[in-house]
């Protein structure tokens, strides 16, 4: 069980924050390029899912998994996107993402007058609290090396 990394995007596709814990493979491009690619992918996946879905969708949560990792996408009604990569078997990530949004993002970014919206998050407090929440979650337990 492990959590690899987290991307936060705003409604215009700009990356607000990138956090990394136990990522093993870098994509071989700059962080900005990778963020654009990631946003492009989740944007396409969302449109793909709305089109392909045989029934009406309700929530802004979806996940896909490959043989190595699982990507979770949580979108708030204000279209802030949280993308979290975990291992395949991780449980309760939807709750974790919701917790990150309500208890970390809202508390330390939205309530912080020094944090401009639509700008990458530079608050140190946010980074510390986020790290705390992620490390406390049961899904985060580093695999034996």
């Amino acid at each position: 069980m492990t959590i690899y990394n987290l991307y936060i995007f705003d409604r215009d596709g700009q990356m607000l924050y990138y956090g990394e814990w136990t990522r093993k493979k870098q994509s071989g491009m700059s962080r900005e390029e990778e963020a654009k690619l990631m946003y492009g992918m989740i944007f396409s996946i969302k449109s793909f899912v709305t089109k392909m879905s045989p029934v009406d969708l309700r929530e802004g949560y979806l996940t896909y998994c490959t043989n190595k990792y699982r990507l979770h996408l949580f979108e708030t009604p204000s279209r802030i996107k949280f993308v979290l990569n975990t291992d395949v078997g991780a449980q309760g990530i939807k709750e974790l993402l919701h917790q990150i949004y309500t208890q970390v993002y809202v508390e330390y970014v939205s309530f912080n007058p020094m944090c401009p919206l639509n700008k990458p998050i530079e608050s140190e407090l946010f980074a510390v609290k986020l790290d705390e929440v992620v490390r406390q979650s049961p899904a985060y337990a580093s695999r034996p090396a």
Partner: protein
Amino acid sequence: MTIFSLYILSKSGGLIYQHDHNLPTIENEKTFSFPLELKLDVQNRNVMVSFGQRDGIKVGHMLVAINGMKVTGQQLDDGRDALQVLQDEANYPINLKFARPRLTTNEKIFQASMFYPLYALACQLSPEPRSSGIEVLEADNFRMNCFQTLTGVKFMVISDPKQSGVDALLHRVYELYADFALKNPFYSLEMPIRCELFDEHLKTALEQAERPGFSNV
């Protein structure tokens, strides 16, 4: 336990087979009085609901009938424009029927070719080395399983999230593809599969998979 539809993509990403097995029809009919409580918009030459969900009518649903008369695109069957009919107070009370739009064949081909880069990107953006592409894509009320063969052909099944045994079904479909499409001398690779025997066996396999207790073939 439902399997909605099946897609087969060729190695180069083209749609070579598609079958809708058990698609639900979502339709709602309601009588409205003059100021319409819904906001309707024209999207892709269809009249769609853009705001004001109520009584099962959701945003993204398409206007399909007015007072029982079919609406094709923006036009009623007698040639009148649907939006103009809706604007005229004299036509009220009015009975409108809305439905969730189905994918047209062209849209299916388009969506299938969209999946190809998504599969490749998922592989590239992986935090772990040597990852495959998307195998299972899950939203709140459907799931898509994808199986890629060694030769690059992709089989995709769209089903209910509670449906079990989809992996076994995908392997069964692969087997059928090998037996009835590839061994057919009239079939050329990368071309759409038009083969009756394949259709028949596929339907049987899908029906079998829907039965409770299905685990392996």
